[in-house]
Structures are given as C-alpha cells and as structure tokens.
C-alpha cells in the first residue's frame, strides 16, 4: 500500500426496518488503488457506497477520508471533500443538453470557474471520453451517458471515484475503453472504488478486492491471484451447480418474426427496423444488446401492446398473429415476462392473486364470462408461490411488498405454469440473487426441453451464454442474424452490440441479398 489509505471504513453498520444492510464492515482503499467491492445483488454494496457518498448515514461505525474523520450528510459535502460517484442508474435529464446536465451536477461555484464548456472539452479529450456538450442527453446511447457522468465527476477532480456496476450497460469494447480511462486515472493518483459482481472484470482491473455477503465482510484478497471460481465461492458462499444446457434437437419453427418495422411512440425511443427472427421448438434464442437499443420496443411488439402493420409480420406455429392483441396471443399459447416488474408485469398495489388475472385469467379459468373467480385465482396464485418457493406472507400480499427476486419468481411462475408454446422474457434475472437466478434458468431450460420456443432478451452476456442455444444481437432497433452459441465469442458479439449505423447497414444489405431470391 502506498502510504496512508485515502478512505477507511471502520465497523460500519446500517440497518433498515427488518433488514441489516451492513454489519460491522471495515476496509480501506489506498491512494491510486483500483479497489473492487464484490458481492451479489443484495449483499449490501450499494448501501455501503451510499454512505460513503453521503446519501445515507451509517447507524454506527466511522469513516476517515485522507486521514480526517468523514461523515458526509449529503452528496454535495462528499463531492466537496473529493468523492465522485457514477451511479448505476444515471442522474441525468433526458430533455436537457449535455452541458446543462454537467452544470447541474456541479456546485454553483464549480460551474462558474472558468469556461465550463471548454473545461468539458478539455477533460473529455484528456481521458478519451468523447462528449458533445450541445446534444440532448435523450438522444445519446447508454455508453455515452455514462461518459457524461464520468466527465461530470472528473471536473471536480476527485480523489476517490466510485463506480457502481459501470459495465452492465456497456459493450465489451466500451468496457475496454472504460478500463483504459480508469487505469489512467489511477496512475494519476485517483483511487477508484469499483463495485461489481462480474469476476472476470475484477480480475482484469482491480488490485484489491473486498468481498461482501449478506451485508457482512467475508474477506479481502488480491483478485489477480485468485481464480474466478475461488472469487465466486467467496461471493456466494457455496458452489452453485450451474444449470446445464442439454436441449434436444430443435423441432419445428414456432415463432417467426419477419421484416417487422415499427416506429417508437416514445420521445427518445428506438424504431424497430426490419426485425426478422425464427425460433424453433426446444430452442432458446438469446437477444443480446446494450440497454436502449430497441429491446423495450421489441418486447412491446411481441406482446402485442402495439399491433404490427401486417398480420404476417409475426407468426405463431404458422398462423399470422401480427395484429392480434396480447389476450389473443396468450389464448394461442404465448406468454410474456417483460423487464419492468412493478407497473408492467404486475400492478404494484394489487394482491398477488389479483395479479394472476393480468395474464393467466383465461388459461386457468380464473375468470369466466367476465366474472372473476377469486377462489380459482387464489388457488392458482398459491400454486405459483409453492412451486417456485416465492417468499411472501401470502397471496393476499401486494406485489410491491415482495423483493425483486421473489416477485420475478412469481411472475415467471405465473407465465410458465400456463405451459406456453412460446415464452418471451426480458431480463429474467436482473437484480435477482444467484440462487433465484439459477432457479429461473432451470425453469427456462425445462420449458424448452418440453418443446416450447423461448426468447430471452438480456444485457447479461454470461446469462445468454449459459442458457441460449443461439444468440443474436439487437442494436439501434435492428436485429442481427442469430448464430449458434458455440460459434460465438464475447468479442464478436461486442462488435455487433456497439453496432454503428455503418455496420448495421452492411448487415442489412447482406440480409437483403440473401432474402431476395427467397422471395421470388
């Protein structure tokens, strides 16, 4: 270690009603060190850094920053002392320009010193973080938005930069660029606290790692000397047997989407362009892509929330369903689990049994001739809760009272127990702990084994490599042709995910060249 640590935490404890978020956590970050904070979802990483950044206050314990007692009561105080933070969910305003966003993130005094516009350009060129101060943030990709956040932090010359799961929204190529920037910062003496659950990344980037599990410190190590497996065991506490992908030969085509184009009706949405895909029985098609590249719009189109222009654009077992609504599609055997759980897949304030009526009403006889059957709905909800071991006080509990992972299990259960012919799930394990994620993966594999066609839209490449039989990439609303998982590498996917318009155009042209003769 180089001299005194820049940040030191001693015996930090923080509890929320009913939950101990952090218990007796102590560790320190050295000057110019890239320090990993490793842990599963719900291990208490976020709460810990929120305390360092002054968003929350510890119940007990103390912190020192550059040798002085440190107890920021609000983020501006932490910033003033030299702590910068890039959140997982960016604090950005879509309808404002990059310049305005950055000005908002600085204190009035900071924003006034010198020509802010020039300083933005200076910092962004120095660290290779290209940003255009006059663009509206809403028009930028997620990677570009992250750059704004980083530039914003760097403008106040932090001594410690906290990065919360920064790579979950980046393409592998963008990740490499980010790592370059971070290494450069560290070499200039800025310490970095890097929060992640991605082991390979941590091994590539960090020189020290602190591992949290269930809110407690379980150890620290030099990740470069560990294997991914040993790190995982520290993080999870047990060896997980990963579900094995042993699917039979694919059968007939069940779901077919052809030349589906659809304009977004959102302000900063993505238009779908000529999306074409086919999924066979027993297949799991993974759709990779960085957030905000048309996944939401594709999901809406597949659910039928917005009808296609032509009915033949989506086919289920050969029948045209492009203009059918969600209820008709469900009646034909499709099921959906969208990304957003509260407010999209479930009504937050309604009980679990009521939430079954949203999508399982018809297939499970929960309502007949317009009349709700509370008995049947309750019974169905109970079965879902039992089968998937959903942790809840009962089926009369409101959906919003469940934890993210448990609600996701409930939603997946609700859909899967309808025995769908086609299941489409977006981000099925996002924010879910490892145990629950494994359960969900197993369920998806079982479903495919029984002959369903499954589509998984996910930003998590590990997940897609684990369970998909084929993977395709969505970028800028265009879906690249899929390839068998075995023939793909992270790098090749990454190139497509970062797909600039040029490459998309090229792929499309190639597409048309192949497709043309088939039409004749």
């Amino acid at each position, binding site marked *: 270690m180089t001299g005194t640590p820049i940040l030191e935490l001693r015996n930090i404890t923080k509890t929320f009603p009913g939950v101990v978020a952090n218990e007796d956590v102590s560790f320190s970050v050295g000057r110019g060190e890239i320090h990993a904070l490793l842990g599963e979802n719900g291990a208490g990483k976020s709460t810990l850094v929120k305390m360092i950044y002054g968003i929350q*206050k510890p119940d007990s314990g103390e912190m020192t920053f550059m040798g002085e007692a440190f107890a920021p009561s609000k983020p501006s105080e932490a910033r003033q002392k030299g702590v910068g933070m890039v959140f997982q969910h960016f604090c950005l305003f879509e309808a404002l320009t990059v310049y305005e966003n950055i000005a908002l993130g600085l204190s009035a005094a900071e924003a006034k010193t010198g020509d802010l516009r020039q300083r933005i350009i200076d910092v962004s060129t120095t660290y290779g973080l290209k940003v255009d101060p006059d663009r509206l943030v809403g028009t930028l990709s997620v990677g570009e938005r992250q750059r704004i956040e980083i530039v914003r932090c760097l403008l106040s010359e932090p001594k410690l930069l906290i990065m919360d799961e920064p790579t979950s929204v980046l393409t592998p190529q963008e990740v490499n660029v980010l790592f370059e920037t971070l290494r450069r910062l560290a070499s200039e003496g800025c310490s970095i606290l890097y929060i992640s659950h991605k082991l390979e990344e941590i091994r590539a980037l960090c020189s020290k790692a602190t591992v949290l599990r269930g809110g407690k410190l379980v150890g620290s190590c030099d990740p470069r000397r560990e294997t991914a497996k040993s790190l995982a065991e520290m993080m999870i506490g047990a060896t997980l047997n990963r579900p094995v992908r042993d699917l039979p030969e694919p059968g007939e085509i069940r779901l077919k989407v052809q030349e589906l184009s659809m304009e977004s009706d959102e302000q900063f949405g993505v238009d779908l362009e000529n999306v074409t895909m086919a999924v066979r029985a027993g297949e799991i098609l993974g759709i990779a892509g960085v957030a905000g590249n048309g996944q939401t719009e594709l999901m809406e189109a597949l659910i039928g929330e917005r009808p296609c222009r032509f009915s033949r654009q989506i086919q289920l077992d050969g029948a045209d369903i492009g203009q059918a609504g969600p*209820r008709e599609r469900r009646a034909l055997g499709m099921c959906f689990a969208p990304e957003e759980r*509260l*407010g999209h897949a479930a009504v937050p*304030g309604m009980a679990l049994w009521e939430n079954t009526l949203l999508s399982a009403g018809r297939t499970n006889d929960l309502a007949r001739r317009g*009349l709700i059957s509370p008995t049947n709905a309750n019974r169905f909800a109970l079965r879902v809760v039992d089968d998937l071991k959903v942790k809840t006080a009962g089926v009369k509990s409101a959906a919003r009272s469940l934890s993210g992972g448990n609600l996701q299990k409930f939603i997946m259960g609700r859909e899967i127990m309808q025995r769908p012919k086609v299941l489409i799930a977006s981000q099925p394990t996002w924010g879910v702990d490892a145990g629950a994620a494994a359960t969900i993966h197993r369920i998806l594999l079982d479903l495919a084994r029984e002959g369903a066609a499954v589509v998984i839209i996910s930003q998590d490449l590990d997940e897609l490599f684990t369970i998909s039989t084929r993977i395709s990439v969505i970028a800028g609303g265009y879906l690249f042709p899929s390839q068998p998982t075995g023939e793909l590498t992270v790098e090749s996917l990454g190139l497509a995910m970062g797909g600039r318009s040029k490459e998309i155009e090229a792929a499309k042209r190639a597409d048309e060249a192949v497709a043309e003769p088939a039409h004749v």
Partner: protein
Amino acid sequence: MFRLVPRKEPNRAMLYATPFLAVALTIVAGFLLFGALGKDPLHALFLIFLKPLTDFNSLAEMLVKATPLVLIATGLAIGFRAGVWNIGAEGQFTIGAITGGSVALAAYPDGGPLLLPLMAVAGALGGMAWAAIPAFLRTRFNASEILVSLMLVYVATLLLSFLVHGALRDPEGFNFPESRLFQEDAHVPALIPDTRAHIGFLVALFAVAAAYVYLERLILGFQVKVLGQAPRAARFAGYSEKRIVWTCFMISGALAGVAGLFEAAGPVGQLVPSLPVGYGFTAIIVAFLGRLHPVGILFAGLLMALTYIGGETAQIEMSLPSATTSVFQGMLLFFLLATDVLVNFRVARTAKPLATPSGAAPKLKPAE
C-alpha cells in the same frame, strides 16, 4: 421531527378510519370557523350535524339531496379508479335535465305510464352524449379530459339558459326564462308520501349495488382498476385503454344525466336556469369521501346531504352566510386528502440525528 415511511401494504384500518378522521377534523375546524364568525360554535354544529336527524321532514329532504350526489359520485368513482378525470358531471347533469325535460315538454300535455321512463332514458342519453365529447377528444386527440369536461360545464349552463330564454320557454309564463311546469305524469313519484323524497333514491341504491358488482366481481371493473393503478400493466394484459375510457365516461355521463332529469322532474318540476346548483362538483367530494367505493359513497352522499340540510337550517336560524356549507365541504375534502397519506405511509420519528459532527466519538468502538 417526524417523517413518512411507506408501508409495504396499504393499511386497511386506515382506509376505513381516515374518512372519520377527516370528518372529525372538519368539525374541529368548523368550531374555530364559527368562533371566528362570532357565532356559537356548539349550537351551529348541532344544527348542521344533529338537528336534521331529529326531524322526519329533514330526513326526507336528506334523501332528496343524497339522490343526485350518490348517483353522480358512483359514476365518477368508477372513472377516478381508472384515472379518468371526468370533472364535468355538472354539465352532464344539466344536459340530462334538458334532454329528459324536453321529452316531457314535447309530449305536453299528454302523459302516460311510459313518459317518465322515456324521460329517464333521454336524460341518460343526454348525459352520455355530453360525456362523449371529452371521451372522444381524449381518446382521439389526447386532449385533457379534465379541462374539456370542465369547459363543457359552462357551455351546458349557458345552453340551458339559452333554451329557457327561447325554445323551451313557457308560452304562458309572462316571458320568464323558465319552461312550463311538467305535466303530472312527468313527475317522479314520491318515495315517502307528502315529502319530496322520490323514487330516484331507489335508482341511486340500485346504481350503488350495480357499481359494487362491477368493480369487485367483473373483469371489466378489474380492468378499470388496473388502468388506474398501472397503465402499462393494462397494456401488458391487453386491456384497451380507449374502451375503458369510453366506458367510464358513458357510465358517469349516464348517471349524471339521470340525476339531472330526476332533479328537474322531481323537486324542481320544470326547467329553470338555476337548476345546476353544484351537485356535479359536490359529488366529487362525495366520491373521495366514500373512498371511491360504492358503499362508501352511499354513506358519504347521505353525510353530505346532511350538511346541506343542516347548513340551510343554520343559515336561517343563526343568519350564517350561505357559503358556509360549501366551505365546510371544501374543508372536508382537504382533510380527507391530507389524512389519506396514512393509508400508504406511516408516521415515524426520524432516526435520532447521528451524533457524528466531525470528531464526535462513534457509538461503537472499533475492535482494535
């Protein structure tokens, strides 16, 4: 200091308790208000809240006032549950009176047993037609139904005034801007003999029962609730927003129209420019006070009717200003909305300020 902490589940006890809490707070505020006006607060509150209950005729009058309030509020509540803000019930009420009343005037002086049902249907259709305007403009052009339906209240009132000054004016009425008195068969039959309470109240009871079944048992009612609470979930489930918006407007328009007709063909007995007296707006208070629940609305409507009757008595006996009643009603809604927070939040003492101004000793000594 205190802060509000969200509850994991809405608190059912608070759901029922807050309307009573709101009434209690209103009474306290009323006590202060009357004191400020230099009137005897206890006597005024007695006149408003208790006196009418001791008198048979006042009880009957309560039913007269409660009828339009309950009818309109029941319809509005279904819409509010869906996030459809029809606040122009007063206009639909007025148009319902015009269309229903016109049927009577057109038939004049003929009558017959079918006349009143025809008038009721015409009233409902009139209210629906008026409600169709904001429904159409919202679903087709995305125009705010709040502002459109509200603007149409003014238009409807002016239309009524225009008609009774012209086409519908009583030819034997010395140029007074009023229609004829309706013929005998066009009057709503009395519910209780020798009082003004009419069978419209039974229709209101029926509407309450029907709305209960609609909201609690029918998928259609479930769709309304889903749209109101989570519009994206409604799309996910495949419920058509357009259809729900239209249904809500048609139900509330029909009920407001019928209420208007009952008012014209009941206690008033003709069309007069002063027919709309604000039931359409008071019904909004009733709907919230009744927790947007049909049964709750029935009780809230009766309570609100009580304040009308009691308010009138107090005005006469204690020469209170006539606006007292509406101030009371406004306060009631305020207190209700204010106490509403307790359903979804609980009050907690803020965590004791952490004793860590720089340099202060931490509570737990680090294990050395």
